[in-house]
């Protein structure tokens, strides 16, 4: 079920439209490598999809549950390093290491949640920020396991990915593109299902007001824990793709700066929407890459942008679009009623 989040009165027609929209987007995305694009273009595509997955994970907590998790990149790092370490040092296959990394992130997310959700609101965010820093520092200092400052080098592409790509006449870069695309589709599907469920409605209730949710009979703590696990599992899922894609890992990718970047992308795209976490990275990552001069000082622009977004359009681009659509629908309905009366 891929109904658009937030749109509750959506009738069957709109639900189908939303689903077909997503199918169209993914089919178009899947066609891209067939036109023989440059490696640079495919690289941008893969990066966007990895950022998008991260943003979907953050959206589960921030957009649906109303909790700002600032350890998000830490779990991205844990997922990436788990895949890196298991494949490099233990000789595991990526296809085994990846699900293990996801499961590990879910379990660690549960443990973090058990402690972190004892605090509320601002304290929760600051607490998770502290945990995020600890994760980054531990990765940075634990030389024996993570390679410390040197990082982890030479992570191999997933077994069979190159052969598979060559077999259908594509380059390895296209193979990675499809790997990321499939991962992204699974992520979107999982998030959409979670949002559109009895469980997801309870998250929205918690976002709307914890005290009210509690009084309405919702087990707030347990729901937050599950949301946290889904969020960190998705971060780890994205981390696994990242590890095999770039082939080397550094602790910075697990740090708060990464979390803040994902936050910016998510806000730009649209908090609490299903399309937002994809739109934000697609626009902003492309923008950063295309404006070469911007790269070093991107936050001269992005810092104020973040402020303006949260002040004037906290629902992001997807939110603005949905608002406009709702207004059109309302106009159509009232127009029809007027006609009936006349």
């Amino acid at each position, binding site marked *: 079920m891929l109904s658009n989040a937030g749109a*509750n009165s959506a009738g069957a027609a709109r639900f189908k439209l939303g689903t077909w929209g997503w199918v169209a987007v993914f089919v178009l995305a899947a066609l891209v490598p067939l036109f023989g694009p440059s490696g640079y273009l495919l690289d941008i595509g893969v990066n966007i999809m990895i950022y998008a997955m991260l943003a979907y994970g953050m959206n589960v907590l921030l957009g649906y549950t109303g909790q700002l998790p600032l350890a998000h990149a830490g779990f991205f790092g844990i997922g990436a390093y788990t895949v890196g370490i298991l494949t490099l040092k233990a000789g595991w296959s990526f296809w085994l290491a990846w699900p293990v990394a996801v499961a590990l992130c879910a379990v660690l997310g549960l443990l973090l949640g058990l402690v972190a959700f004892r605090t509320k609101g601002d304290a929760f965010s600051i607490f998770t920020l502290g945990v995020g820093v600890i994760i980054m520092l531990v990765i940075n200092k634990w030389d024996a396991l993570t390679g410390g400052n040197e990082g982890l080098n030479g992570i191999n592409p997933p077994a069979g990915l190159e052969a598979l790509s060559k077999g259908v006449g594509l380059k390895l870069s296209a193979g990675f593109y499809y790997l990321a695309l499939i991962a992204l589709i699974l992520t979107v599907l999982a998030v959409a299902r979670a949002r559109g*469920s*009895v469980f997801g409605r*309870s998250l929205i209730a918690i976002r709307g007001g914890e005290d009210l949710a*509690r*009084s*309405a*009979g919702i087990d707030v703590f347990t729901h937050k824990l599950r949301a946290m696990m889904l969020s960190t599992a998705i971060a780890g899922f994205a981390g696994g793709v990242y590890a095999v894609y770039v082939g080397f890992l550094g602790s910075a990718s697990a740090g708060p700066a990464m979390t803040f970047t994902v936050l910016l992308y998510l806000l730009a795209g649209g908090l609490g929407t299903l399309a937002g976490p994809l739109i934000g990275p697609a626009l902003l990552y492309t923008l950063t890459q295309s404006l070469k001069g911007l790269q070093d000082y991107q936050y001269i622009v992005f810092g104020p942008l973040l402020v303006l977004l949260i002040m004037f359009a906290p629902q992001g681009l997807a939110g603005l679009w949905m608002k406009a659509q709702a207004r059109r629908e309302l106009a159509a309905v009232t127009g029809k009623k007027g006609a009936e009366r006349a």
Partner: protein
Amino acid sequence: MLDSSVGTGSNSVGTELLRVEGLGIRFGGLHAVKDVTATIPAGQITAIIGPNGAGKSTFFNLISGFYKPTTGRIIFGGEDITRLKTHEVVASGMARTFQTTTIYKELSVLENAMIGHRVRTRAGLLDALLRTGRERKDEQESRDAALTALTRVGIAAHAGRPAGAMTQEGQKRVGIAMALASNPKLLLLDEPAAGMNPEETVSLMALIRELVAGGLTVTLVEHKMSLVMSLADHILVLHHGQKISEGVPAQVSRDPAVIEAYLGSHAHGGQMGQATVAATGEAPHA
């Protein structure tokens, strides 16, 4: 007597549904509620009244499990629910509304009611991800229960509207529907008439009577004395966090302790005047 009130929910009128024993809570050094022992009879309307700052809302928050008492016990349907978490209290059959129109204004009326039914469903994250049979069954059940609740409060026709677009009274009804969707035995209403005009108040009172006629037990905190005196079967009076009187309206309104409490707090002297008029002017309803 205890056995009869467990489980079934169809309690014969007048038997005890909820009992508090020596209930108290302290905030810092202050006794907001102190040593209250009282009962709420099944199938009736019980009103909790008292001058401003008497601890009515705190008492309310205590029985609904929102605050944890520092002393005493709460027995609901024969079970000790004192230590239960708020959502567990709801699961045990007690639902509440808030003073203000605290509902999910950005969600639809139907979704508000569906949220109220969450406590009766079990589907979790894994059910959602795998779209299990339980997920589909729970979703359907939530929808049905929510529609039933909306029908009971008379706003089923507005199911698709955003709750925030309803009138003040409509929003109160959404709040009541949310509570009813959890299939409670006891419905707690915190100042249901706050912010209502006289017309809306009358229609809300009619709704409350209807619900009670259907077998529900209702307890409310209310400021508007005229409403309390004509609506309640049973009244509990709090003052400075302690119970000073309990009984039928006619009895309570003549209780010297109650009159003194209201006259003593000059801000509400007028209200008590109203109350006396209401109680003596019309015969206490049977």
